[in-house]
């Protein structure tokens, strides 16, 4: 049984009378000790998906099962227990920590709230976590603004781990960091996964990072998953035209300077009412694409794509 199983999830916003389905029918699974990467560009709904899974947002339809238990409609009281098993790491190291709390308080409060009354026990757990994350002990008495971006991100990771969750949803955890600090944090996350038996849902727009870090990759466009493959297959044999365009757009030395950009046009603000939502920009769209909305179908073992022509 998968650790996390999401079925046909939909999260909608209403503004000015229009309903926007930021997540529009997403199904995915994260197994134990697995890292699932979720890539997509701005507006694809990946952040919304992440927040819905950890129930910071309420889904409008579909199911979220953590360890078999359906939490999609659970109330805050019953969710509290569940929250020990899944946590989130946020993108911006400068706003993800309460600027008015010392690091010690930031790490201690979760334990207090979840019933660990013994002060010594809490201190022990905190020291255990910060040693794994290479945060020195004197950091505990400082305030977030005294640290650099990379250090703050470490503190954010420590906070996510202090309750010993099984699943961590990482929402662009290294996007706001310098390259050399990115490497440190990625290596750290790899180590923690191994040492603590974690599973990750790793959300990012940075394809190279996802390529390095994930076991399995999901590509998202306008609220839907358009391709699902393991990391090697996705780069070796991408089947959905959007995935191909995305991979072709990543700059590298191997590409000639004069090559035309892989994808023209811009992301639409909302999905069209009929047919494939990618057809407006798709280089290979045919008539069928305008009328029939493709579903995510299995192409081979562990490889699925939502395209009529894949």
């Amino acid at each position, binding site marked *: 049984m998968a650790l996390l199983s999401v079925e046909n999830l939909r999260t909608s916003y209403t503004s000015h009378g229009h309903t926007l389905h930021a997540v529009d029918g997403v199904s995915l699974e994260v197994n134990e000790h697995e890292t699932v990467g979720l890539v997509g560009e701005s507006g694809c709904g990946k952040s919304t998906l992440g927040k819905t899974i950890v129930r910071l947002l309420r889904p409008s339809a579909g199911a979220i099962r953590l360890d078999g238990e359906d939490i999609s409609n659970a109330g805050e009281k019953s*969710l509290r227990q569940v929250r020990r098993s899944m946590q*989130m790491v946020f993108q911006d190291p400068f706003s993800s920590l309460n600027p008015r709390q010392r690091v010690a308080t930031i790490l201690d409060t*979760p334990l207090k709230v979840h019933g660990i009354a013994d002060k010594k026990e809490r201190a022990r757990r905190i020291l255990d976590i910060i040693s794994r994350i*290479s945060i020195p002990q004197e950091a505990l008495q400082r305030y977030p603004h005294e*640290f650099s971006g990379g250090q703050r991100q470490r503190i954010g990771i420590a906070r996510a781990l202090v309750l010993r969750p099984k699943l961590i949803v990482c929402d662009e955890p290294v996007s706001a960091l310098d390259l050399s600090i990115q490497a440190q944090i990625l290596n750290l996350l790899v180590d923690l996964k191994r040492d603590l038996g974690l599973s990750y849902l790793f959300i990012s727009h940075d394809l190279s990072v996802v390529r390095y870090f994930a076991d399995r990759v999901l590509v998202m466009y306008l609220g839907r998953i358009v391709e699902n493959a393991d990391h090697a297959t996705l780069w070796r044999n991408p089947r959905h035209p959007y995935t191909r365009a995305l991979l072709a757009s990543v700059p590298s030395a191997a590409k000639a300077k004069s090559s035309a950009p892989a994808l023209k046009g811009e992301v639409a603000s909302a999905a069209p009412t009929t047919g494939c939502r990618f057809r407006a920009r798709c280089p290979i769209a045919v008539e069928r694409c305008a009328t029939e909305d493709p579903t995510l179908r299995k192409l081979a073992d562990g490889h699925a794509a939502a395209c009529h022509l894949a």
Partner: protein
Amino acid sequence: MTDMVANSPTTPVVAPTPVTTSRSKRWSLPAYMRDPFLWVGVAILLSAFVLAAFAGVIYPGDPLDMAGPPLIWPGEDMSYPLGTDALGRDLAAGIVHGARVSLMVGVCAAMLGLLIGTTVGALAGYFGGVVDNVLVRLTELFQTIPTLLLVIVILAIGNPSVPLIVFAIGIASWPMIARLTRSQFMSLREADFVMAARGLGYGTPRIILREILPNALPTIVVATSVLVANGILAEAGLSFLNLGDPNQVSWGSLIGNGRTMLRTEWYLTALPGLAIVLTVLSINIIGDRLTDILNPRSGAR
């Protein structure tokens, strides 16, 4: 391009050195402390509070008692350094005792306004939806009633006394704090660290009081200083109109008493007026500088 061999998991990681601000490296006076205006303001306000606190010691007895010959000018007779009024009451004693009432009303009314305003604003800002709608309408209701009129009406209904005046001014001034608190809460509610708190299963009271409020407080405190100043002015206005507590001396009542002699013995209105001006000014200056003082991030990043 990755170096396959170099870093084994057991390579010791250099402990990240916390980036210290220049303030903690070599302790030097932060910018706000070097501001002379701030010190002048603090000095004036502190003197006002000291005078108010020790009024009974400096000028024992009732300042409304006759103390000497009437209408002595300041400087004429050193036993009445600021002169006397038409009934022979010592103006200096009046100002010192009046400080007590004026400051107390200002501060207490502001505290009441702060309490009500923060509560209303926090609930409206955090919960949104129906709660927000109702509370915003309530705020608007109180805001559209002219402050002084509301206060006068309340005092006309009840017996004018210092507690009632405090209540009346507080009731009239909370909307400003409520609006400010509400907007702070609305924006902080979306901050990542608040989402993290929710994700960690913190209860709503904890999130409102321990996570959001401490971050909203600097802005609210600065606004409260304005409330204190306004409270002092409102009280002065009321006492001037003889709507204040008749048994107490306040700066406003002194100004009111001297009104009829404005053209001849103008010191009777000018000196208490000056006391009000200096106090309110110093509160404004301090309030201005409070943002720097309360902000832990000044200088860092």
